[in-house]
């Protein structure tokens, strides 16, 4: 329970926990408690979340528009608390802060079949409500760009390979990476082939297939309350095919369970209790799931020094992903058979 409490202590220490800041939101705070990279505030108006924003105001306005759009049909997303000036943020000591109502739920547990089922159905509902959302910020509209993105990622992987090969004294990470990189490069190529052979571009042109995707469906961003799923933290939300979000959710939910096909099957069934998927979407979903995002992201984070982790942490994570290789391979084969993908 307590391990993760201060994982983001460096970021948390940059917060201003000032009475003046709370007053901007007309709140009297009696207690604060850190959770991940935010603070829970115990206030005279109930429990709230204080969040320091590390992206632009434009991005924040985009998230606000998205939430407003979704709320029209789906109420189980967070609410911003407005400031005295009716804004959703305030600038305090040069930093941007938001306050949101705390949802009275608990984090979804991907090991728990009931939670996963509730979350999958909720995701179907969220996507239904998020259908038709439009916004004019180009980098938020990802629809139609996936194949190009995968090609770019393939080039990046090849570049990381050349870096690792250049190292005269190869470390443990280099060795594991080089032992596996060709396998994963082939997998990226295969993923691109599947998408090219599918109706990917056609689907991107169909309005009912494109939604606002949450794009960060980690267990802690899905809260369960009264047997219903609530979705929080839309910081990474993008406009794309709904199967993109579904792909990320399935992979996150099954990867710790040795890529259990039955669990994936259940997720799809529960999702389809509140949404519809056609055969072409299954083909694209298969192509998206084939992409080795786990391997790509850990190697990118390592060779571009994106994360401040210890060397051992990188090696451990890479090894874990590589160990899952056969599980994922089997899963993809079974998925292909189950959903009759040619």
């Amino acid at each position, binding site marked *: 329970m307590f391990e993760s*409490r201060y994982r983001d202590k460096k970021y948390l220490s940059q917060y201003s926990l000032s009475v003046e800041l709370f007053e901007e939101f007309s709140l009297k705070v009696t207690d604060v408690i850190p959770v991940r990279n935010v603070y829970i505030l115990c206030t005279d108006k109930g429990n709230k979340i204080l969040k320091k924003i590390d992206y632009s105001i434009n991005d924040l306005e985009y998230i606000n528009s998205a939430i407003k759009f979704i709320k029209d049909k789906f109420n189980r997303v967070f609410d911003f608390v407005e400031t005295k000036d009716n804004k959703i943020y305030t600038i305090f000591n040069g930093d941007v802060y938001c306050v949101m109502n705390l949802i009275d739920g608990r984090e979804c547990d991907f090991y728990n079949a009931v939670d996963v089922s509730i979350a999958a159905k909720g995701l179907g509902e969220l996507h239904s409500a998020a259908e038709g959302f439009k916004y004019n910020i180009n980098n938020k509209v990802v629809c139609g760009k996936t194949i190009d993105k995968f090609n770019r990622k393939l080039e990046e992987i090849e570049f990381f390979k050349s870096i690792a090969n250049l190292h005269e004294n190869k470390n443990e990470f280099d060795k594991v990476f080089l032992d596996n990189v060709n396998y994963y490069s082939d997998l990226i190529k295969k993923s691109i082939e599947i998408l090219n052979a599918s109706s990917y571009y056609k689907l991107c042109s169909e309005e009912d297939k494109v939604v606002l995707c949450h794009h960060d469906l980690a267990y802690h961003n899905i809260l369960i309350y009264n047997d219903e799923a609530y979705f929080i933290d839309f910081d990474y939300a993008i406009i794309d095919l709904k199967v993109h979000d579904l792909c990320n959710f399935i992979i996150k939910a099954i990867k710790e369970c040795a890529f259990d096909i039955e669990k994936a099957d259940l997720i799809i069934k529960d999702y389809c209790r509140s949404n519809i998927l056609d055969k072409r979407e299954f083909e694209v979903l298969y192509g998206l799931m084939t992409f080795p995002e786990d391997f790509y992201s850990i190697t990118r984070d390592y060779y571009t020094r994106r994360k401040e982790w210890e060397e051992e942490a990188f090696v451990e994570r890479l090894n874990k992903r590589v160990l899952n290789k056969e599980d994922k391979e089997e899963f993809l084969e079974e998925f292909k058979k189950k959903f009759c993908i040619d």
Partner: protein
Amino acid sequence: MAIDKVYDSLLDYLGQNGIKVGEIDTLVNYRNLTEEQALEQLFIISEFHKKIMGYNGYMNIRLDNKTGRMIEQYKIYNKKLKRDIKKIKLNTPENQFEELLLEIGDVYLERAENCIEEIYKWDYIDLISRSMQRVELCLGCTDFNHIAKDESIVISTLNNCCYNMVEIDCVYFINKLKKKGLTMNWESLIYKYCDFEGLECKSAKFISGLVSYPYEFMKCCSRYRENKKDWDELKYKEKLLKIIERDNYNLI
């Protein structure tokens, strides 16, 4: 500090419900443990569950949630062992451990798969739902030196407490006794425990399924696969043989 507050909140809750956290100096000789003593311990565990059930955390910050984890872990063991055996059959055994696995692996795999099948047959999903609705918490460690009762219930630490189905503490307890080499009427203990807890017959079947699961065997194979211990293949073989020798319980 926040951590203290979370601890304090749980401690308060336990205190209000008549549970103390402190040292336990009970010395139990497992060799001479009687069925009555085991039953008494199960009764104390069930009392603890009833008293702590419904605790929702401090400002929404909860204990670890381990509901469903054991079964998911067992499913992973099954999947991996199945693949290992398939590989050995394809490539011929590389050492004595693999020879042994080739000889007896299928029998254990079948048993392990039957256990999971049995668990699902008895409405596992429904049991999870009940556990979540009642906000059930487990001790995680059910030893005599971890939970005891004199005037009130005493537990030695909060560290292993987590959200989980109350059936799981019974599984931990019986598995511990099995590991100590004890033989008891496990089925009777399980049914009586379910009685203490007010659980239905399907919970007893669920517990029987989990207790029958060849956990030690599967864990040893997993350790060999992932090379987790600094053991050679002969040591792994020796361990596996010991596990097979001790393993005499299958209720399904």
